[in-house]
């Protein structure tokens, strides 16, 4: 798809501004009614989905240029979290605001118009295959002493793809180590690619560098094929979104993709995992965008756009609809609810209209202040829910919350679901 193919969305936006809010039917208070961090932080129309559609129309009509000053800031100061997409599709089910914003990024990158602070990150990624500015050789340090099967030498049906954040963020190592422990206990034949594991490419694709993403997708698929892998398990939502949605969209892909919460639910249902200890805690669950509304599986579609009755646009055959409804929402909640002692309370914005953690699509790396402000908003919402801890299923959300809590000197605790699972076994 190219920006030119999205004219139907670009030209028909009615500037209704639904994209700035969570779906109206779900608004519970003025305080937490907003859905788009970008417009809320930047307070200027161009920084909303609607504003970006306007900008892309101007680009398509060649009224402005990719090189125009200020456009980099407008295009990239957005997490591509997709809350706008969900709200917009309530009335305009065939609109694709997030896809337009993604395509705009690709075009900007093609023209060499990107935030200059990307340069070291992308150059480092090309050399060390990770987004953490860390050395490739250290990628498997988290697994030291665990004796996990190395899939560069052995074969297994299941690969545990750890992801860049979990591999290099020492404070979070406890999570992948717990995954290994659980999979071992459940008798799963699995392995890791260790220091030869590559970045999934998902984040860098959202940042606009689709070219880099393609390379990583091809490498990862090759490595899994060579190791005889059938199922890919990951604990990271960014990786999950990359494997579930982006890989099959771009290339032949024949692997089952499972988020660790889905795997745990499966193990609980099969009776292979039992919780024996109480974890007395009131918690709230933060839906990672890339596991929720953006984590919907890719549905193959080939067709064309047609006009009926002179002006109504239809797609033949019917196009798959990505409106967030098929994201992973209940699974993590089911796991949490099955832990004895855990009391789960909801934040006002949850599931497909959850507020973003602030880390997505390169915003943490490019605009740390905006990223931290966004996380801070979520922390406020979590506190208002009465929870003593915010629990998520993505290392990027957790790191952003941990930093925001520390910065604001808050007492709210930040956990991964796996932390509670480990406590309960």
């Amino acid at each position, binding site marked *: 798809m*190219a920006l030119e193919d999205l004219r139907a969305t670009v030209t028909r936006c009615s500037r209704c501004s639904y994209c700035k809010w969570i779906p109206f039917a779900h608004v519970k208070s003025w305080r937490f009614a907003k859905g788009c961090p970008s417009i809320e932080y930047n307070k200027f129309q161009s920084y909303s989905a609607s504003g970006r559609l306007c900008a892309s129309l101007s680009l398509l009509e060649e009224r402005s240029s990719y*090189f125009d000053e200020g456009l*980099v800031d407008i295009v990239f100061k957005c997490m591509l979290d997709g809350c706008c997409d969900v709200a917009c599709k309530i009335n305009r089910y065939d609109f694709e605001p997030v896809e337009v914003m993604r395509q705009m*990024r*690709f075009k900007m*990158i*093609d*023209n*060499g*118009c*990107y935030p*200059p*602070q990307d*340069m*070291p990150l*992308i*150059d480092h990624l*090309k050399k060390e295959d990770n987004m953490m500015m860390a050395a490739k050789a250290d990628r498997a340090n988290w697994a030291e002493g665990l004796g996990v099967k190395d899939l560069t030498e052995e074969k297994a049906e299941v690969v545990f793809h750890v992801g860049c954040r979990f591999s290099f963020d020492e404070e979070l190592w406890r999570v992948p180590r717990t995954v290994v422990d659980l999979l071992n206990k459940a008798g799963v034949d699995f392995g890791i690619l260790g220091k030869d594991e590559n970045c999934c490419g998902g984040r860098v*694709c959202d940042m*606009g*560098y*689709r*070219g*880099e*993403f*393609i*390379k990583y997708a*091809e490498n990862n698929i090759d490595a899994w094929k060579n190791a005889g892998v059938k199922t890919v398990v990951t604990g990271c939502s960014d990786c999950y979104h990359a494997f579930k949605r982006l890989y099959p969209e771009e290339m032949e892909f024949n692997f089952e993709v499972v988020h660790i919460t889905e795997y745990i639910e499966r193990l609980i249902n099969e009776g292979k995992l039992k919780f024996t200890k109480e974890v007395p805690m009131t918690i709230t669950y933060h839906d990672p965008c890339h596991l929720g509304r953006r984590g919907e599986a890719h549905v193959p579609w080939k067709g064309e756009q047609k006009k009926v009755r002179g002006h109504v646009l239809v797609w033949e055959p019917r196009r798959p609809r990505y409106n967030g409804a098929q994201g992973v929402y209940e699974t993590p909640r089911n796991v949490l609810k099955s832990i004895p002692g855990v009391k789960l309370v909801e934040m006002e914005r949850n599931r497909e209209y959850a507020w973003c953690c602030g880390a997505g699509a390169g915003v943490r790396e490019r605009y740390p202040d905006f990223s931290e402000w966004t996380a801070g908003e979520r922390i406020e919402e979590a506190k208002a829910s009465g929870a003593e801890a915010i629990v998520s299923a993505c290392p990027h959300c957790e790191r952003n919350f941990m930093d925001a809590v520390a910065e604001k000197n808050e007492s709210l605790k930040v956990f991964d679901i796996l932390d509670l699972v480990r406590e309960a076994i």
Partner: protein
Amino acid sequence: MNILVCMKQVPDPQASSSGTTVDSEAKKVIMPQGTPPVLNPYDENALEAALKIKDAQGAKVTVISAGKNMAKTVLRKSIAVGADDLILLEDAAFENMNSYETAHVLVAAIKEIGEYDLILCGRQAADTDAGQVGSGIASILNLPCVTAACKLDISDGKAMVQRVVSDGFEDVEAPLPAVITASSEIGEMRYPGVKEIMAAQKVRITSRKASDLGVDVSQLKKPNLVSLDSPPGRTTDCQMVEAETPEEAGADLAVKVRESQIL
């Protein structure tokens, strides 16, 4: 000492090969969507050579680049690593010029600058691999030219250059001013920190159009690309040579290789 470095912005030579396609009809190479242009790696080597001279004995390093729709963020990387000035020769007419025309445009800017002791270029561009701009500049300006330099020392108004040749190295001495084209062995460009990258965005750069340079665009020639096609697909056929001993296997392999006319 004034050093001028000619820099070209090129499509990323490290881009995914499977994602890169050829549009034979439009005679264009289509890069995978979302692939930023980069500085030509050999030109980066040339800049590094200039910066080494600057470090050792002090010099003003000016980078010049010509083209259309130039990615300023990318080109400003040269300032981030230590170049003092960046001059962009930007004009719709500067798109797809042949090497000699490019050399002419660069020379127009070089003459405008006036003072220079050394002109450095990369040995060739990663997209066209033509390797003619450096010698083109030298011939127009009537200067000595040393190509494919892997070592460069400047002293007493002379350049001591070691060149890479097919069977080894060659040491050459050239009086300054001279044009020298750099090979990768001269050294990878140093890496700028985020602070330097951000600071480089604020440095004032000079932009010059064809008319500013007095270049008659009607005289600029575009290369006449006759046809552009994807390389033919490669098929691989693997045959195992079975034999009792490694010696026999070696002999059998030699016979097979000869039979199939590979050797």
